């Protein structure tokens, strides 16, 4: 059964006809499953998940539908959302340094949602926070509990954020680029941790990232976004091995690899993401696509069901399988 089902989610400016930030995002996430939303900066990934929780930026209008366990989230009142936020859905942000309050101890911040939602006393919430810090593999948890964020390292802070997000035992964890601000070794530890937590806490995971390496390890399903639209969605393993969309192919080719000639120039997708150039009537990736044909500029590709998901492209997979050049 699906825990979160998003249907044609659109986010755009209230007062202008400018291109929407998210345009027709649909996906479903089953209980216990994990989905990665991948896309380059500015593709609307973060805005999409923030709007699910009623935190879209000022001046943005959200339409469409997002049902969490049968509860409609889009357009819900804050008092309604507060029941879900923090208790049933937890979230971790990209930058752990700024998402912790510098004036409160770690223990207070982890225990906060317990005090607010479960009515626990400060002492009780501290006991739970101690267990949570252990769960996110923070050594010397009892001492850490009384420290302030500035006394912790980046990886440690992100673990604290995780502990805080998991305090009320949510069913869904949303992680917005949780490893971006961390260095490579810490990233690795955190990915391992996330995988373990997903198992231990029976979490469904919605991961936002632009790191394709993370995707393959953490998530069973992957959704690729470009300019606010879905390009392709499918089984992670298949999608990373045999992408059927030119954009996914290009993303994968643009990854730095150890087995290529270090002196050869790295592959880059030509052009840049320019919202103003995107026509509502054409494929948004067409201007940068090396497989684009005339049709791509005239008609927005309709969703096409494939074995394990959906793709939005006019070209057939076999036509684009052999990349030119």
């Amino acid at each position, binding site marked *: 059964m699906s825990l979160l089902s998003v249907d044609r989610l659109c986010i755009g400016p209230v007062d202008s006809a400018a291109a929407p930030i998210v345009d027709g995002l649909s996906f479903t996430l089953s209980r216990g499953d994990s989905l990665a939303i991948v896309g380059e900066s500015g593709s609307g990934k973060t805005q999409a998940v923030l709007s699910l929780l009623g*935190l879209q930026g000022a001046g943005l209008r959200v339409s469409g539908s997002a049902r969490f366990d049968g509860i409609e989230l889009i357009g819900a009142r*804050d008092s309604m959302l507060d029941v879900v936020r923090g208790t049933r859905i937890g979230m971790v942000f990209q930058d752990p340094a700024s998402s*912790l309050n510098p004036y409160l101890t770690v223990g207070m911040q982890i225990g906060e949602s317990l005090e607010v939602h479960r009515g626990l006393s400060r002492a009780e919430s501290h006991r739970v926070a101690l267990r949570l810090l252990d769960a996110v593999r923070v050594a010397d948890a009892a001492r850490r509990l009384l420290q302030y964020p500035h006394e912790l390292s980046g990886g440690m802070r992100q673990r604290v954020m995780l502990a805080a997000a998991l305090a009320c035992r949510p069913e869904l964890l949303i992680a917005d680029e949780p490893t971006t601000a961390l260095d490579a070794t810490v990233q690795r530890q955190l990915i391992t941790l996330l995988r373990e937590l997903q198992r231990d806490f029976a979490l469904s995971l919605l991961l936002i990232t632009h790191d394709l390496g993370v995707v393959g390890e953490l998530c069973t399903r992957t959704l690729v976004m470009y300019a606010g639209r879905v390009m392709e969605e499918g089984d992670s393993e298949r999608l990373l091995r045999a992408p059927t969309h030119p954009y996914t192919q290009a993303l994968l080719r643009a990854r730095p690899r150890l087995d290529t000639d270090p002196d050869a120039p790295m592959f880059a997708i030509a052009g840049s993401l320019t919202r103003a150039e995107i026509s509502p009537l054409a494929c948004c990736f067409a201007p940068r696509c090396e497989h684009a044909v005339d049709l791509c500029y005239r008609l927005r590709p309709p969703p096409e069901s494939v074995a394990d998901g959906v793709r939005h492209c006019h070209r057939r997979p076999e036509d684009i399988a052999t990349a030119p050049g």
Partner: protein
Amino acid sequence: MRPHTTSPGMRAALAALACVVALVIVGPWFSPYACDEIDFSGTWSAAPTLVHAHWFGTDSLGRDLFVRTLCGGRISLLVGAVSTLVSLLVGVACGAVAGYIGGRLDGLLMRIVDVLYALPFMFFVIVLMVLFGRHLLLMFVAIGAVNWLDMARVVRGQTLALRERDFIAAARLSGLSDLQIIRRHVVPNLFGLVAVYAAVTLPQVILIESFLSFLGLGVQAPATSWGALINDGAREMDVTPWSLLFPAAFLSVTLLLLNLLGEQLRARLSSRGGPAA
């Protein structure tokens, strides 16, 4: 990183200020005279002398100036502290709510502030005094009512910056209500700013009280304050200069120390790159 060391200037100002406060509180106990007691054995308007323990001399009614200066200090400092506290509580509450909630409520609260700003202060105080009579409590209200306006504006500005920060979004995502966020996340982050502002407000308030008392709108005789004493002393300064000199010196030194302290705090805050860094 938060430096917990204090500069020598700050330590000195704090120590001197503590001395003044201690003197004002315990000093009157060491004198044989009471605040409103007339010493009939001595002379009226006596010069400072050790003989009758009139260390600062007496005023034209024969009351001991040492005791009166310190008792006046009690009132001045009390008015300063309470009024600052009042303006702090009201200002922070109003500013934080207006800044965080925003929208119409923000507009409404800030227009109230604007209207109160436009009110001429002296007129406001005189009306209050006329309507309710002269009372110490009224002084707290009058001064507090005017001083919270600045505080509210400063706090609102800071809150506007704070609410865009990620940890506020994180708090919203953990399902905290607006008031819970204001109480748990916004207000603690305002602490540095508010501390500095309070340190700046305190001497201002003491000055305002002295000013009102000097004009005869402040404390009611026989109670006194530094402003009232300076007023008395100024009338007789050609005959008994000490009756002006001692209260004026106490007031000036206290204001100087408080301003120094405020300046030190401000410098420390800005060296930390703003209150929230």
